[in-house]
């Protein structure tokens, strides 16, 4: 493989990762890292460095559309970013002091659990909670969005803000430790715990992962892990894919998004548990 053919293959894979990432509220690192290391034989350090850049690319590329189309809930994003950035800082501080084996096992279990919960909810429809929500009331988090697939404005209430904050703190730690945007943890936290509609969860997660990833990207850059030659086609391809995918989210059925997300979660959970068990 020549440098030119590498650039073209990496570009192709990244467009795909950006498309999927923007539709699911994740950065696409889960797709990019295996393609770069296994298929294109890139060193893992540079693959992770390129992945963190791709998270920011997905986020910024898709969020511009989501914010304009009012799918992302800005207030929820700002409040939860308090917890994710604190978590990312804690993660950077404890990195290296915790065994990666346990890390894999814990995350694998968390993901398997949230995919089961999302699956149950998928079949039960979207019953929204009427529980009192004093924090969400005070912070004015309740909002509405226009669902293109249903062709109408959907109002929603936000509940369990404090549980959401706690879950986002954990998601932030994961980002700091593993150098990912951890959208796979953010989307279920908003969708399941806080009662946000799945499209709003995806759009808001996309908006947030950029900030979480920016916090770790500085560290990766000063370590020399961001190789411009590897990161360039990845960033470019992911941006194109995310900008395209974000135009589709509004039109998709919520149940389709959930089904694809649950499948992806289960796959990632299995990968993580396997790595944890193998040691």
């Amino acid at each position, binding site marked *: 493989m020549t440098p*030119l053919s590498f650039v073209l293959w990496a570009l192709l894979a990244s467009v795909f990762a950006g498309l999927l990432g923007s539709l699911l509220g994740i950065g696409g690192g889960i797709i990019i890292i295996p393609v770069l290391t296994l298929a294109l034989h890139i060193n893992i350090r540079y693959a992770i460095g390129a992945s963190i850049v791709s998270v920011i690319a997905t986020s910024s590329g898709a969020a511009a559309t989501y914010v304009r189309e009012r799918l992302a809930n800005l207030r929820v994003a700002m409040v939860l970013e308090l917890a994710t950035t604190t978590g990312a800082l804690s993660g950077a501080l404890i990195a290296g002091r915790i065994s990666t084996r346990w890390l894999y096992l814990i995350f694998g279990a968390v993901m398997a659990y949230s995919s089961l919960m999302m699956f149950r909810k998928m079949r039960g429809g979207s019953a929204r909670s009427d529980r009192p929500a004093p924090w969400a009331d005070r912070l004015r988090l309740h909002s509405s969005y226009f669902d293109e697939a249903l062709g109408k404005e959907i109002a929603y209430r936000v509940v369990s803000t404090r549980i959401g904050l706690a879950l986002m703190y954990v998601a932030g730690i994961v980002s700091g430790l593993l150098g990912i945007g951890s959208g796979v943890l953010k989307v279920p936290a908003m969708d399941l715990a806080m009662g946000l509609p799945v499209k709003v969860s995806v759009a808001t997660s996309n908006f947030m992962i950029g900030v979480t990833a920016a916090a770790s990207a500085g560290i990766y850059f000063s370590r020399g892990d961001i190789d411009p030659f590897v990161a360039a086609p990845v*960033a470019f391809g992911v941006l194109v894919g995310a900008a395209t995918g974000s135009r589709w989210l509004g039109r998709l059925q919520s149940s389709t998004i959930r089904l694809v997300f649950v499948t992806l979660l289960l796959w990632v959970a299995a990968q993580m548990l396997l790595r944890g068990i193998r040691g």
Partner: protein
Amino acid sequence: MSGDTGVRRAELIISGVLRTGVLLSMAIILAGTLLTFVRHREYVSSPAELVRLSQPGEAVPQTLQDVLSGVRELRGQSIVAAGLLLLILTPVVRVATSILVFVAQSDRTYVLITSVVLLLLLLSFLLGHALG
């Protein structure tokens, strides 16, 4: 709902910041990559060059000074690195812009929340510098 038009304006401003950052960094990354291939014709045909470019040992720019001095010499890879740095900064600029938007709406709670997020973000950059 009160302040709906204010929120709408804020959303459009933030969306504009993200779009500008993304388009600008894409243009710079594309230009740098094209320049790299124009200046190194062997990259089109030599597999050995890829091994050198994608394994540790190759000098990867690590500081702002590395990047800037490379850009002055019109090195393609340094221009790409500058584009990547701009991309990394886009979310930070987005948070900073949000503060101004909330100030304009005199929404004190959210000015405070967003300022703390920006501080934490800057703290992590400083930390990265200290750890890196």
